[in-house]
């Protein structure tokens, strides 16, 4: 049964969802069985993901793999069509990893645990589906469906202003995603054939004018999700109210959906329009970096501060996507994975801190490091990761984007100089707000006002374990980035080549001769699998 013909992707999507349906029937008196059940389901699914990619995925191929396609509702030509390639595979792994840790992070949830873990497991499958589906209609549906659990998780378990935040979240994302539907339909009916299949859509030869309209529509939807300024204001509200596990999902995975969809649709399907829009994206990305860093610096609310820092980091993804170089695109992918890990760890620690201080206002904190030494240490490590300290994944990603963009021949030299300069200003702003943040929370003499009514206990082993799990890949990638980049490199290279074809005036990429490789990049060995197995 466990062969390559097994519907692996469908299994990893549907297994957590199916398992979640059993939650109402599990006998659970003290509220502890459910969480173990959810954790085990999460672990099994993650193990299957790893096994599946390890055994049946060819890392040296840029093709769509593990493809399954079944007709679902033939009247509207809706097909259950899934598959993964280099830009979705790392994100599927990330999803499994972060969501499983989010389940573990939900240990202290006591309010309606059944519903909470049910929603988490539904999210698990829903998120993977977003990254795996290869049918536009299905993509739209999964995109929408994954909003419902988040909406509920926000509005039931959030902070004081949770209703406002949840409503704003749903309005922004659902409202903007209507553009996906419109664009998907328009693209499907364009030309002679009607198809919702992403690969067929990408192969369609569309007029530039039409492409531009489609591009704009998708961009609005994904700019809300990613987010791109000025469509970001839902995010600080949602992040400011969410509980730690939901936070981890929002920052770790949901933001990546915007970046993923931007690459999958705007870049891959509409390369002509991308050539036109890319400079705009670069400008927006630069604005993201600086603007969000400044707002983060001024924020006095801890959760909102870190939320703005996420926005700032997403700016590098946008610039990388628009760089027209292998390195830039690879850096954008790396930044997404890296921020998924770093964002999740920071938000988890913010939650852990809040659990103890019961305040998010920096003015009321200070000096808590004396009692919470381990949380202090972990917070410092994760802040360092977030400010792109070398040796950690964020640095590699930002460096790749920087070098990729600086050497891109798609832009004039003055434009590149200005963008690189401004983006590098972000490098100065990031430590300012992150280290100020650390100083205001942890440094200083013991905070008598706070310790008078709150017991500041240090991290428990579960919390240390979660952060350790996140830091291992962060540092691993930082030490040896090839570990990650080589598993998706084939795809980003192919994608860049396609983009450059579409953009007139770009010759062969000039690469470094001096860095002549001493070792040939050996692709990971994987059983050769014929791609495209339709059933």
């Amino acid at each position, binding site marked *: 049964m466990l062969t390559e013909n097994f519907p692996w992707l469908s299994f990893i999507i549907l297994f957590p969802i199916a398992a979640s349906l059993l939650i109402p029937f599990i006998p659970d008196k003290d509220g502890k069985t459910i969480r173990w059940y959810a954790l085990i389901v999460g672990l099994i699914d993650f193990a299957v993901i790893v096994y599946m990619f390890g055994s049946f995925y060819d890392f040296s191929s840029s093709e769509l793999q593990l493809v399954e396609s079944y007709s679902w509702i033939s009247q509207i030509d809706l097909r259950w069509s899934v598959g993964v390639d280099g830009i979705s595979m790392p994100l599927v792994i990330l999803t499994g990893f972060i969501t499983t840790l989010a389940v573990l992070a939900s240990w202290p949830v006591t309010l309606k645990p059944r519903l909470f873990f049910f929603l988490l497991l539904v999210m698990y499958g829903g998120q993977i589906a977003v990254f795996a589906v290869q049918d536009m209609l299905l993509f739209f549906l999964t995109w929408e469906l994954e909003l419902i659990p988040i909406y509920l998780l926000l509005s039931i378990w959030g902070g004081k202003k949770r209703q406002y935040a949840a409503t704003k979240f749903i309005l922004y994302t659902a409202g903007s995603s209507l553009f996906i539907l419109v664009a998907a339909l328009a693209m499907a009916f364009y030309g002679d054939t009607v198809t919702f299949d992403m690969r067929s859509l990408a192969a369609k030869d569309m007029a530039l004018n039409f492409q531009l309209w489609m591009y704009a529509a998708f961009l609005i939807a994904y700019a809300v999700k990613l987010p791109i300024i000025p469509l970001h204001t839902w995010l600080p509200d949602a992040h400011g109210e969410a509980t730690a596990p939901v936070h981890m999902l929002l920052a770790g995975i949901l933001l990546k959906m915007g970046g993923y969809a931007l690459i999958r649709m705007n870049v891959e399907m509409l390369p002509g329009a991308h050539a036109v829009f890319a400079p705009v994206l670069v400008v927006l990305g630069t604005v993201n970096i600086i603007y969000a860093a400044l*707002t983060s610096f001024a924020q006095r609310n801890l959760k909102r501060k870190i939320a703005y820092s996420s926005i700032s980091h997403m700016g590098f993804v946008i610039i990388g996507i628009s760089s027209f170089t292998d390195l830039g695109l690879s850096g954008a992918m790396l930044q997404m994975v890296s921020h998924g890990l770093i964002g999740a760890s920071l938000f988890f620690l913010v939650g852990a801190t809040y659990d103890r201080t019961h305040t998010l206002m920096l003015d009321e904190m200070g000096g808590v490091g004396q009692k919470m030494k381990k949380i202090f*240490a972990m917070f410092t490590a994760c802040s360092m990761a977030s400010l792109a300290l070398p040796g950690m994944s964020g640095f590699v990603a930002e460096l790749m984007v920087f070098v990729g963009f600086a050497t891109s021949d798609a832009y004039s030299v003055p434009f590149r100089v200005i963008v690189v300069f401004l983006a590098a200003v972000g490098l100065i702003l990031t430590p300012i707000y992150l280290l100020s943040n650390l100083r205001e929370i942890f440094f200083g003499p013991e905070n008598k006002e706070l310790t008078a009514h709150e017991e500041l206990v240090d991290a428990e082993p579960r919390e240390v374990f979660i952060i350790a799990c996140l830091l291992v890949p962060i540092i691993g990638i930082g030490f040896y980035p090839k570990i990650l980049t080589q598993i998706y490199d084939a795809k980003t290279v192919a994608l860049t080549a396609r983009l450059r074809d579409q953009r007139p005036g770009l010759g062969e990429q000039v690469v470094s001769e001096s860095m002549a490789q001493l070792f040939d990049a050996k692709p990971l060995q994987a059983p050769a699998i014929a791609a495209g197995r339709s059933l």
Partner: protein
Amino acid sequence: METIYQYAWLIPVLPLAAATIIGLGLISFSKWTSNLRQISAGFVVFMIGAAMTLSFGLLWSQLNGHAPYTQMIEWAAAGDFHLNMGYTIDNLTALMLVIVTTVAFLVMVYTDGYMAHDPGYVRFYAYLSLFSSSMLGLVISPNLVQIYVFWELVGMCSYLLIGFWYDRKAAADACQKAFVVNRVGDFGLLLGILGLYWATRSFDFEVIGDRLQDLVQSGALSGGVAALLAILVFLGPVAKSAQFPLHVWLPDAMEGPTPISALIHAATMVAAGVFLIARMFPVFENIPTAMTVIAWTGGVTAFLGATIAITQMDIKKGLAYSTMSQLGYMVMAMGVGGYSAGLFHLMTHAYFKAMMFLGSGSVIHGMESVVGHNAAYAQDMRLMGGLRKYMPITASTFFIGVLAISGIPPFAGFWSKDEILGLTFAANPALWLVGWLTAGITAFYMFRMYFLTFEGEFRGKDKVVLNQIDAEQLKAVGLNFGPGAMNPKELIMDIAPGTQDDHNHDAHAHASTPHESPWTMALPLVILAIPSALIGLVGTPFNNYFEAFIHAPGEVVETLEPGFHALPKEELTEFLVMGGSSVGIGLIGLTLASLMYFSRKIDPAAIADRIPVLYNLSKNKWYIDDIYYNVFVLSSRRLARQVLEVDSKVVDGVVNLTGLVTLLTGETLKYLENGRAQFYALVVFAAVLGLVIFSGVTS
């Protein structure tokens, strides 16, 4: 000998392993690990000792003329882009490895005594080990990107160590300041690296140098751009080596425990800037503009640091400004093309300044037994005096350091400083004048420090001075809070007794006289005194072994037979004139200091009153910190607040409004106000309905 090269990567990895193991222990079994004090310390010291042995082996092999050795692996790749990392061992690396490991080893031995009563003893060793590892990684880096990686890592270790006593507000501010100021430098360095890569497609020092020269000569790249890129790279060393205008972090960094002031902020990390200039020498030397900028930056910094040092009363702050001034000399040497002179001074300075910092730590340790664990008291020279009687080893080693830094022959500093001044004179007499004056000021403030600390009567119980220090502390804090923010009495409660966590070992504070430090602290001082006195002899003009070993890439240096070589007549005259003038001005400084602070024939206060403008300029560090605070700190805060204002009022409002108008007209608003999922369901339902109708119509 090949084997030792194949295992050279162990040099940074051994301390890293020690730091990792102890760090994991602290996180996982904090109580247990914290109690394993001697074992953890021994482990760390052993690891750095092993790295030191390897380093000596490499230096020996390099001295015997082994060819440079490079080992690389591919680190990052995307498409056709490949970036390799690895290590390279050449003369310069071997020398730096030995300097770093020996100083680190001795500082770690010393730490055992200095931090004996600190609850963070084990954590401190873990940080020290992590720092050593990063610093060693920096010096073996074969390309610019790897240098940048370790460059930031040593910065992070410096951050952790400055903020080691994180319950102190001053330490919290200082560590952040250090990191952010260094990031400003790194910002320039990164832009420079990117620019050079864009121009030359390489991160390799020599390749960049060659190609950049070709590009400029062929006219493909304007000389101005090349100079700009070089200066951007130079911004990195400006921050790391505390050069004007990014020097402001170094004096504040003295909030960290003294062993790290010796290791990081005197001997190794701050010298990394000079090391980077040396590595980038093939690039810089072809760009005259950049060389001029480097030389003058160094000269100005040397002068600035020295002029501030003369009025400092905090012994560590005084040494910090002195370090800044000496780093200025090294950078100036590099700027006038004195590659080996700059590195020679780096080496001699590393030893004598590390020794003096450790000596000041020993003094502070001794003072704490009298005035208690309060940095404001224990480090203030007005409370010291006469310590030579109580701490003879500290005093005599410190005196050797003073002689070395003041350029008195035959101590180490004389040879290196003389070489720098000689080269500077040949390149630019105006710059030489600055350096020469600085040499005089250096002798003055160093002897002032020595006399105030070790000679005269012990003043540790002087109530007048104690009150004066309290008043100054209050004023400093008061400035931060603004006038009338707090009742001064409350502030006394807050800061005067030092930090509260120290009360557990305040029991020491009842002795009436200071005592000599334990052997773990005294022994490193004695060992460091040997190179401080003698190491200058490897670089005398009579036979410059140092220059024969360390010289700019591509430069041909005639190899000399061992032994004394008489100089040709004109060179000997030049040496005598240059050396004589610098010793002369040094002696003037010495005499002045002894008149003012030893025999008390001249009253320093009277001079200060005579020239209040200059005195205040020096006392207030040329007001540079205040200017930065008002210009950069306050304005960036204001800007950030304004952006946030705009974000929450304008952007949020406008986008919300647009959303409302376009999406939800009329009836739909009702659902919005309810804020329920029904609205969402409605939207999806409408969309699907629309889809079905649409597909029905079209098919």
